[in-house]
């Protein structure tokens, strides 16, 4: 179970990428995971169809914060459509640790992705897929 904390995760946790806040920004959303008390807030800017800049702030467990940091690298430079379609699996592959047997921690890992989807949905009106519906209620 400690392989949850492989080097890459700890590195992102201790040295988060794209940490901060864009002000002004084109899109913003925030989300919480009530289990861990994780909290992630994401701001983005668009340039044409691209997500040109993305930043996050947050607090919480290493999984949620490292996943948010990894997501920044995944998203920046992609088109809005690509990010709207970005499957969970791609982020989970990036995280690269076995979370399947650990649904609680899966929520930590996917928090930031849900927040990104919500931010896009609000700013660009892209559909918020059913699996992320819970994020809108928060």
């Amino acid at each position, binding site marked *: *179970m400690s392989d949850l904390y492989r080097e890459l995760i700890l590195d992102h946790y201790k040295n988060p990428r794209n940490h901060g806040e864009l002000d002004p920004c084109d899109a913003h959303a925030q989300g919480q995971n009530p289990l861990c*008390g994780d909290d992630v807030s994401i701001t983005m800017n668009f340039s044409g169809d691209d997500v040109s800049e993305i930043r996050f702030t947050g607090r919480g467990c290493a999984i949620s914060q490292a996943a948010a940091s990894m997501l920044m690298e995944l998203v920046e430079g992609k088109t809005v459509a690509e990010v709207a379609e970005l499957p969970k699996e791609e982020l989970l592959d990036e995280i690269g640790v076995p979370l399947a047997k650990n649904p609680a921690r899966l929520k930590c890992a996917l928090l930031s992705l849900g927040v990104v989807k919500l931010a896009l949905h609000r700013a660009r009106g892209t559909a918020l897929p059913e699996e992320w519906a819970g994020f809108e209620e928060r």
Partner: protein
Amino acid sequence: MSSLTTPTALDVPRIRADFPVFEERFNGRELAFLDSANSSQKPRHVLEGLTEFYEHSYSNVHRAVYELGERATAAYEGAREKVRVLLGADSTREIVFTRNGTEALNLVAYAWGLSELGPGDVVVSTVLEHHSNFVPWQYVAKRSGAEFAMLGADAAGELDLEQLDEIERRGRIRLVALGLISNSIGTVNPVEEVAAWAREREALTVVDACQAAPHRQLDVATLGADFVALTGHKMLGPSGIGVLWGRQELLSAMEPFNLGGEMIRSVSERETTWNELPNKFEAGTPPIAQAYGLGLAVDYLTNVGLDRIEAHEHDLTVYAMEQLATAEGVSVLGPPPERRGGIVSFTIDCAHPHDVAQILDSHGVAVRAGHHCTQPAMEHFGIPATTRASFYLYNTREDVDRLLEGLAGVRATFG
């Protein structure tokens, strides 16, 4: 250190042998289960007794005329009597079975609160409460136009009773809801003193004893409370069973809670009348086997001796606090061992509580991490969450040593 040298009268190895879960191996090791405040493990006496009950005595209660029905009813009502004795209550009419502790507290909030409270009234809860003794009061206060007041605590997590004077100036005090032992940091609250204060103001006291009943001898009269709530799964019993004790005259005068079968005396289009106590508050088919199982758990606890259990846990708490004081970066929340139950909540400077719990799991140590359903208390301490170790009759100093070993692992990963 072996439990054999633990300076208490409890024969812990023998007790552990009664709990099948300790035969399991987790990551190759015996389980150091330090999460009983969340839910306890179950002894064979309860597990086997339940199987036997289902095999030989199960049917619905109170309505079957055949022999099986009589056995089931006797088992269910027998459990009520055991709980009555456990709490020192006068009558089984005062013992209401519920689904859990949460439902017991909601019962009072809805049945008493919604019809008794109104503008100008004040309901008091505390910053240390579990959400189940906080949110219902906040909610019924809002619904009824009463004021909700939260009694605060000091830096050590002990209630600041001086605030009661200020709270009293806000209106007529009608009810004070407080826990006997805080589930998130372990504080033992001065319930008798608060109940006496409430009584002088003709206000009621609701005591959440979910964390106390499993670990110490209680007596409802001594507490001076009007209602006491407990939950079975934290005291070696099954989940799905809770208890509300209430003073008979209050329960009698109260509106019902859930409505339906079993709780009525007669029903017609024009009017429905309520059953006698405690059935008035037990609508529908109750948790039959769960109540019986709770009775078995009470037998087991009484047999071991709640005083000895309390002393044993105190010893472990003192030991754990000594050990944690030497651990780098660890801060323990809450009062000194003299005024705390068997609960030790802490933070470690290098890691989030959930990551701590996860790494401890890889060492075969089970603890809880989170806000423990006490967000106001977490806010009071200015933290989102803690890691919590809690003790019960089957724990040993070795379990505490395993905790410390696991925390060294946390340092190695995150430090």
